[in-house]
């Protein structure tokens, strides 16, 4: 009932309580209040997908979500993917490295978070399904072919890991 609100939420497994301005976007909250700079802010009106995160297990644009809307939510950002004990990159992150899925890297967190949801729902997507899923993310280096290769590689590795 005012311009400031107290929110409680979980980000990458850690609980936070903060007072925020109602107009603060979740992307800016993650970057400026929690100092998690992996969630990139590109267009700030829902077109580019660089700010894609998972909210309660579902991909979402952090720039099109207010921090106050995330009260009570469970958030995963790209910082939450690396194995905390071993320090190893997540298989999707490693696949993007190995298949040259990143050029300048600005769009990469968004692509990786979108891929995380895609492969969680559909472990063996067709090229068409991958393209449709990635359709909401823009790469300003236009390195789409190697991003597609990276998702295919990640899918193969995750499948053989779960089969093992």
């Amino acid at each position, binding site marked *: 009932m*005012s311009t400031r609100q107290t929110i409680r939420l979980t980000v990458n497994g850690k609980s936070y309580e903060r007072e925020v301005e109602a*107009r603060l*976007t979740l992307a800016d909250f993650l970057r400026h209040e929690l100092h998690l700079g992996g969630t990139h802010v590109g267009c700030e009106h829902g077109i580019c997908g660089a700010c894609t995160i998972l909210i309660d297990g579902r991909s979402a*644009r952090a720039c*099109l979500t207010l921090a106050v809307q995330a009260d009570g939510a469970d958030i995963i950002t790209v910082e939450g993917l690396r194995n905390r004990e071993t320090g190893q990159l997540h298989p999707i992150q490693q696949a993007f490295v190995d298949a040259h899925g990143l050029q300048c890297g600005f769009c990469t967190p968004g692509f990786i978070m979108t891929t995380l949801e895609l492969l969680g729902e559909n472990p063996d997507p067709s090229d068409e399904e991958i393209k*449709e899923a990635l*359709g909401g993310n823009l790469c300003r280096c236009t390195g789409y072919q190697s991003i597609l290769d990276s998702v295919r590689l990640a899918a193969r590795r995750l499948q053989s890991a779960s089969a093992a």
Partner: protein
Amino acid sequence: MKPAPFDYHAPTSLADAVALLARLDGDGCDAKILAGGQSLMPMLAMRVARPDALVDLARVPGLDAIRLQDGHIAIGAMASKRAAELSELVREKQPLFHAATRLVGHQQIRNRGSVGGSFAHSDPASEYPAVALVLDMQMVAADPDGERVIPADEFFVTYMTTALEPGEILTEVRMPVLPTGSGWAIQEITRRNGDLALAGVALTLRLEAGRCTDARIAAFGVDATAVRLTAAEEALRGAVPNGESFARAGATAAAALADPMSCIHASADYRRHLVGTLIERALAEAAARAH
């Protein structure tokens, strides 16, 4: 590209929400409803909208149900588009609405964007208003005095404007189950998969004894609201469903478009051409399904 300041309210019942809206309106406060936020947030970020207050419906229970009721599919206004997309009920009983939902934005948008939000936002390039006209959908709106049902052909007024009064909340949309034997299709041209349409058409088609007995056709992305294309519907009545009659219906619709929108991405003539071509394609697709 940051929203201007606003007061934030998160009522926890529909009664509280409508009472709050009435009070804010009485105080001369410009309040906007926040549903999924996927259309409102860009407007706030670009400051096209600068409301004094947002009323977030996320904590109002019971607005996200998807159910079959009295032969209609009723979708709560706060149901996410992703929920509508994944609903077996919607996919089986009203495949046109299912297909339209799959064309709205990208999965990241559909995960959070609400079904009701799109109807209330009433973007002329969005798929839902055209589908609402084709299916003769009904919109349920609540205010402190109760609820009223608004038919789709009265609901969409002009660009981003609906028949909803300032204190009203859209609570549910209702659509008939697709009759057996009806064909349907939705086709659009976008600059990028998932973006708003430069032009699109949605239609249903009924065939009996080798003739078209009924067609309902609407276009989106061409005018201030979605438009019914009655001349093309008439042109089909009694026609043998084939490439020739479908092309004639498309040409009739294109000729009947009074003054299509024009912008840097698509001229009025190009939009007119798209509508004709899309109708031809969509009718062929619908006819193949009409058995």
